């Protein structure tokens, strides 16, 4: 082989590696319904995802992901979300080569078996009025798209994170499970004044809270009279006396539109 021939072969070899055929992600899960893939995906899901999303997919620290297809997400969109993570959240990227494309499709094949059926009842409520209800009852503590209070969790993405049923139960019946950073706490000062708020951090010797005036402050336990954990959430229960069934429908309809993005814009 002359050096020219060798060079030509080498260059074509380099080009072949440098410019592989463009890879495209299938729009539909190629492994959906495949029993082997579902079993493998169950393993992958339980090891990688269940800690945050729960064994049943209904959410622990992370969102309920049994509703994602009902919420309009697509197979390829979910694939990209898992591959790239969610910026600004705790959802990490599951990158190659440690997590292969096949691993991701297998996990989605399993997740599809956990997916909630499409709601049989027609969608109820008026989102526009729901937004007004939200501003009246909820916005003092909850932020949506940079407007609202800070005492409760930011709800800008709640529509893609929680189902209607979960939200309804939370509003009507309250909860004894607290998201990290939102557990109720009362600090009693040496003078006997009570400071109520939500707990941001704690160790044996100190507690860091946001009080109801949204002041963030740390307190050393040996310098205050008492630090008491609340047993029920700082969020009040909204029974029918405070929120009518009709307004609740409207509020839920509004909350389910909150997906952290404009649904009229096609997701990449």
């Amino acid at each position, binding site marked *: 082989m002359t050096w020219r021939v060798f060079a030509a072969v080498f260059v074509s070899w380099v080009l072949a590696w440098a410019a592989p055929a463009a890879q495209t992600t299938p729009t539909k899960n190629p492994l959906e319904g495949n029993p082997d893939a579902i*079993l*493998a995906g*169950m*393993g992958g899901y*339980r*090891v990688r995802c*269940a*800690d945050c999303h*729960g*064994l049943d997919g209904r959410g*622990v620290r992370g969102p309920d992901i049994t509703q994602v297809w009902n919420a309009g997400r697509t197979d390829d969109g979910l694939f990209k979300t898992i591959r790239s993570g969610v910026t600004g959240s705790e959802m990490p990227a599951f990158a190659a*080569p440690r997590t292969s494309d096949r691993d991701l499709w297998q996990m989605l094949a399993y997740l599809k078996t956990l997916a909630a059926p499409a709601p049989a009842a027609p969608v109820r409520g008026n989102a526009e009025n729901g937004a007004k209800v939200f501003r009246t009852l909820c916005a003092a503590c909850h932020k949506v798209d940079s407007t609202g209070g800070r005492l409760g969790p930011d709800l800008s993405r709640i529509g893609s994170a929680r189902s209607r049923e979960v939200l309804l139960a939370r509003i009507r019946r309250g909860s*004894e*499970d607290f998201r990290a950073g939102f557990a109720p706490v009362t600090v009693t000062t040496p003078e006997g004044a009570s400071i109520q708020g939500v707990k941001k951090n*704690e*160790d*044996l*010797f100190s507690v860091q809270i946001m009080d109801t005036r949204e002041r963030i402050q740390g307190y050393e336990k040996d310098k205050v009279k008492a630090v008491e954990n609340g047993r029920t959430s700082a969020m009040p229960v909204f029974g029918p006396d405070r929120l009518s069934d009709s307004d609740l429908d409207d509020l839920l309809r509004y909350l389910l539109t909150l997906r952290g993005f404009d649904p009229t814009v096609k997701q990449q």
Partner: protein
Amino acid sequence: MRILQVSAFCVLLAAVAIAQQAPPGLVSIQEVAQGLPADGSRWLTFGGNYANHRHSPLTEITPDNVTRLQPLWTFQTATLGNFETTSLVRDNVLYVTGPQNLAWAIDARTGRQIWRYRRELPSNLTACCGLVNRGFGVLGDKLFMTTLDAHLIALDMKTGAVVWDTTLDDYKVGHSSTIAPLVVKDKVIVGAAGGEYGIRAFIDAYDAATGKRAWRFYTVPAPGEPGNDTWAGDSWKTGGASVWVTGAYDPEQNLLLYGIGNPGPDYHSESRKGDNLYSNSLVALDADTGKLKWHYQFTPHDVHDWDATEVPILADLPIGGQTRKVVMFANRNGFYYTLDRTNGKLIVGKPFVTTTWAKEIGADGRPVLIAGHTPDEKGEVTCPDLTGGTNFWQPSFDPSTRTFFVNAREVCMTFISWKPEYKAGERYTGGAGQRVRESESPAWGALRAIDPATGNRKWEFKFLSPSTSGILTTASGLLFSGDADGNLLALDSRSGKLLWRYQLGAPLHGTSPTTYMIDGRQHLLVPSGTTLTAWALK
């Protein structure tokens, strides 16, 4: 003329050398075997001594003056990952291994680096549980270090240069090594990690001078070897039983005592019927040959990932009117054990945390099981969780009060299992666990002082959440440890009373403070997160 100049330089050097204090010679095996000397001049093996007491004879820092501790210097690794190392010290120099296959020699007076060693990690590394390392071994002028890509290397103590490099096994199929080598006589004892990858693990001994392998003890017996019949079919081939925490050495019996990890796959019972020896066992090996002398299996046929890779501690204790040669062991399965180390027979077996899977340890040494604790696809709740009642973080033993100290966890978990498929180099666990919700079963922890003659608790210091810190005790009655929130704690080792604390910014994880003398002052060295901090009295 040039010859004259060189000669003059040599004469000058010789004069300077005479004027300076003579440096100590090579590290002798007698020094290593001596453990922690009264003058505090060195810490040369993982647990301080071969018995793993992690108990210092130093008394300058006391319960009365510990509040006067002040930081002297801080050393940062400048890399990702946390310290899990026990640093060695000799002649005012620290020898420290870190995450990501890094290691340093550090001036113990100032915290300044003398040399740094770095080994490039393969891109396809499969180490399961953190890119960590638990410390050096030392002999002569060599430091010994295991690597994440399953090598054992010897470094020149003065330069950090590689003297020899031996492959333990193939990292591509899941072998790795994080254990601190134990140096016994002329051998370096290490083990293979990778129990979550279906490896067949082992304990190895290598010649300290050359790196040549002297013997290997497979922790999963092959067909024809005793114990192979405790593995159904071919399940022994992927049996795991890894070795990643340094054991103890009993010079009198010439016995190595090592805790062995979980069987593979971790959670799926049907994949490996039988007791699965020597997983979840303490094995006693002849240090010269690696031959098994006895074993004690804490958790036969484990299905909860309860590696017995905790630190064994040796002592001679008065029990029942006679002096017994014992090994003490707080196990991940939630039971504390005192065993006769001459034969592996049970003396004490008692829960030190809430345990729901076994009623007690029977007279035959086997746990008396409670039904309903084999994971399946639906899941079952068991206490303790997979991380266990305790784990690889080091306990301590104070011989003067005959007290065993351990950081204990009170956590329950839903275990689930499914049939896994073995693929070389991929995870092979067949299950997972999920913590029970806080509202149903809060997770907490406590540092507990245990009487090894009875298994009874002497005192406890409660934590809001479980600590993963090791423990150091001193002859002045101090106990140093940490909580999960980054607090360095000093307790009175006789009462458990809190004496002093400092917020480090990162918890001690899988390692403890150590202590030694520099220029006549007692130093406390604290590894936490990516930082080493040295302390002494004001």
